[in-house]
């Protein structure tokens, strides 16, 4: 049954790709321009998948894809999100793979601008998920980066859990927040973008100045923040507020399963979307498209919450714990990818100068 579905998907994919190529003739200056012009797509028996370093597709699914596509698949994970895009830019002349997964919306603008992606509209992407769509790339999963609070700590101290960004600069929340460095950590960058979205390009630095005055602590990476600084996790650190994911409270559920000891502050969330794309100049564009379609298949989409802590873009069942403890933010903050692409380096530099010195 699945096979039939896949075959039809593949056929649709091929048609869509051909159409896509025709409708957009040689608009980019990538080496693939010629092949696009002749409306054919490259194919090969080998497929190289480039992912970020926390990519974790279960073995069964990898095996399934290999079997059904008949491709010899190699997975490479050369770095985190930012480094991944930069490596693809660096290797534009001789691409290091066929398909990339793991470019998020803070880097997608750059990836598209640099012409490292060949446009592909996957027929497997349901119309209901078009809200995530962006030119050239295909959305696979999404999530919210939110501040998390140790609700037990706040209950014990008799202080109300903060709810907004404004709350964080109030004296009662002095020395309680730990965030990660946007220069080296993806949730850190997302939280910086959340503040920029909320306070504007001209106001965010002042806000950070207030955060600094109120004793915000910056650490290098998410694990350091969550496990050693945050009081609600294993490390039993000193700070009850931390930058993490909307889904994190689903992993601090008490043994009886009745409640979570932490809570995500849904008013502080920045929406993160992760995309896949066909790498420009790929040796196996056909296989790349098949892989993207596969990522949107029900099997992969349902595995995403468990393996990557993100919400699938298609409408599949979510883990029970998530329904209860990891709701998405209704009003998450966003910035357009091209705007991020234009401002990101400047924002991080200015932020570094303001907060770290």
């Amino acid at each position, binding site marked *: 049954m699945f096979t039939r579905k896949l075959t039809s998907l593949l056929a649709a994919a091929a048609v869509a790709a051909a159409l896509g190529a025709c409708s957009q003739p040689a608009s980019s200056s990538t080496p693939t321009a010629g092949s696009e012009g002749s409306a054919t797509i490259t194919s090969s028996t080998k497929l*190289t998948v480039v*992912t970020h*370093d*926390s*990519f*974790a*597709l*279960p*073995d069964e699914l*990898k095996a399934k894809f290999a079997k059904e596509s008949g491709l010899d698949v*190699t*997975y*490479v*994970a*050369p*770095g985190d999100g*930012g*480094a991944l895009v*930069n*490596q693809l*830019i*660096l*290797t534009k*002349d*001789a691409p*290091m*793979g066929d398909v990339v997964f793991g470019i998020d919306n803070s880097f997608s603008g750059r990836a598209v601008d640099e012409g490292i992606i060949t446009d592909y509209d996957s027929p497997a992407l349901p119309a209901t998920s078009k809200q995530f769509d962006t030119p050239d790339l295909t959305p696979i999963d999404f999530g919210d980066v939110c501040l998390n609070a140790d609700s037990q700590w706040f209950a014990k101290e008799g202080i109300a859990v903060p709810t907004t960004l404004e709350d964080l600069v109030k004296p009662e929340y002095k020395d309680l927040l730990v965030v990660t*460095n946007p*220069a*080296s950590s993806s949730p850190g960058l997302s939280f910086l973008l959340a503040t920029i979205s909320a306070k504007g390009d001209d106001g965010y630095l002042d806000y950070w100045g207030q955060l600094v005055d109120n004793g915000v602590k*910056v*650490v*290098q*990476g*998410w*694990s*350091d923040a*969550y*496990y*050693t*600084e945050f009081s609600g*996790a*294993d*490390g*039993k*650190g*000193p700070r009850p507020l931390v930058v*993490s994911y909307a889904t*994190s409270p689903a*992993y601090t559920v008490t043994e009886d399963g009745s409640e979570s000891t932490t809570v995500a502050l849904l008013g502080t969330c920045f929406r993160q979307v992760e995309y896949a794309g066909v790498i420009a100049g790929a040796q196996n564009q056909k296989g790349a498209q098949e892989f993207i379609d596969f990522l949107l298949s029900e099997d992969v989409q349902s*595995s995403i919450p*468990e*393996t990557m*802590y993100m919400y699938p873009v298609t409408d599949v069942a979510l883990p029970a714990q998530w329904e209860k403890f990891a709701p998405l933010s209704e009003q998450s903050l966003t910035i357009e990818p091209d705007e991020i692409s234009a401002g990101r*380096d400047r924002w*991080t530099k200015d932020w570094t100068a303001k907060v*770290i010195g």
Partner: protein
Amino acid sequence: MDQGLDREGHRLIRRLGAPLAGRAAWVVAGAVPALFLAVFFLVPVANLVLRGFHDGGSWTLAGFSEVFSAPRTWRILWFTLYTATLATAACVALGLPVAYLLHRCRFPGRGLLRAIVAVPFVLPTVVVAVAFGSLFNPGGLLEFLQLKESYLAILLALCFFNVAVIVRTTGSVWSRLDPRLGQAAQVLGASPLRTLWTVTLPALGPAIAAGASLVFLFCSTSFGIIMVLGGVKYSTLETEIWYQTTQLLDLRAAAALSVTQLVIVSGSLLASTALQRRTQQSLRLHVDDSAEHPLSPARDWFALSVTTLVVSVLLVLPMANLVIRSLRRDGQWTLQNYANLATTGSSGALSVPVWQAVWNSAWIAAVACVIAVTMGVLVSLVASRRPRNRGGRLSLTLLEGAFLLPLGVSAVTVGFGYLITLNRGPLDLRSSLVLIPIAQALVALPLVVRSLLPALRAIDPRQLEAARALGSSGWQVLRRIELPHLVRGLGLAVGFALATSLGEFGATSFLSRPDNPTLPVVIYRLFGRPGPDNYGMALAASALLACVTAIVMGAAEQARGKGVSTW
């Protein structure tokens, strides 16, 4: 024909300026590792760095003026040099008493102590950072010292890694320094302190300086320590190169910084190599260990107390703490964290169970070891020739120096260099697993060469002359005298190669594949994933990696021949 070859080889033992056939053999022996170095190191690195000096149309040095007009660069440069200098001074101060005790005094348990001191040097940065972190972090044993993300924590971790370098370089010379030199001073009325200060230390001077310049090199290029323990406050040249390259793709700035780093690194490497050579030549060293004396607490109290402090607090405590924490869950003693190593972690943190990663690490280390030792043997044999002419000597010094360079070029520069260099035809190895052991072999090669060369240089030239006078051909001398000497250094070289490869993280993280991760990569990933299971597994895997490395190094120390530990 055979005889002709033999005769040529014969002369070669003393100089490279021998006629064609033999000379060609040595050139080939040198060319194989040189080609390896060029393809997998020099060209990729040069390729990336040169891009920073080319703006698409013409060559430009704009990167330099841009980078060096920023106050941040100067702050980083100053911090790098300042920290490296301070850490080096601390390592020398702590390392000398330990070197004295472990190499000049005889006492039961000395072998074990030597192994304990030797292990930290090859431990993976990830593990060390975790170990120190878990000590100073909230809830840690030494939380009250308030050292988390402090400058002192960085210095301590740098010393943890590098004190072994001082102990080793000076210890091996000290153990063979004629004790009567110091006695001569004492009989002339010099107190033990004055003797140490005016006679013993100056005699050890070149060895100390050689070790110190190596430590300086390691400290000034340290990446993981600064990244993990330094928090966001501290940046060094190395972390800045990483940041500019991976996060901003500002190749101009990265290239300018890389060249600056290379200048610093080459300077300390040249100093170290020259000084090491001077030590080997200038001191009339005992070959045996007759300079040792039984430990006497009354006389050696100072060295004894410093060593006790260094070993117990600086070296053992962080590791012991790591092991203890890996055995605890929710305040209970348990082996659960270790049992979990058979799983892929909670919520699919990994694509393979940790044991699979152990197996990957093992075979990759084995391959890397074979490559590194093969190349190392060739390099050492060629570099230990004793040419008579100045040009020959100079080219050998350069050869030796070139193979030490990987110590001083950041992994990210090598990794990104691979991406844009090894990208065509049969050399497109970017998605191949083969690149991992190759990159690790490059990192291990400097240590392998430094373990093998002293063994060859220690051969008394008269021994070679005697063998030739007895009618041995050049090849026979090589086989019967030089190779057996080489074998004595081999144990140590293999140990270093294996341990370095097992712990290598920087280059590996760029090259490893999600379904074939190595142990350090798995540890890093486990720490980056939520869930107490993953955290516990990361601790257990770190402890496991530390133990395996310690066993490998301990075995290498045992297999080490006498007097071949100068590096």
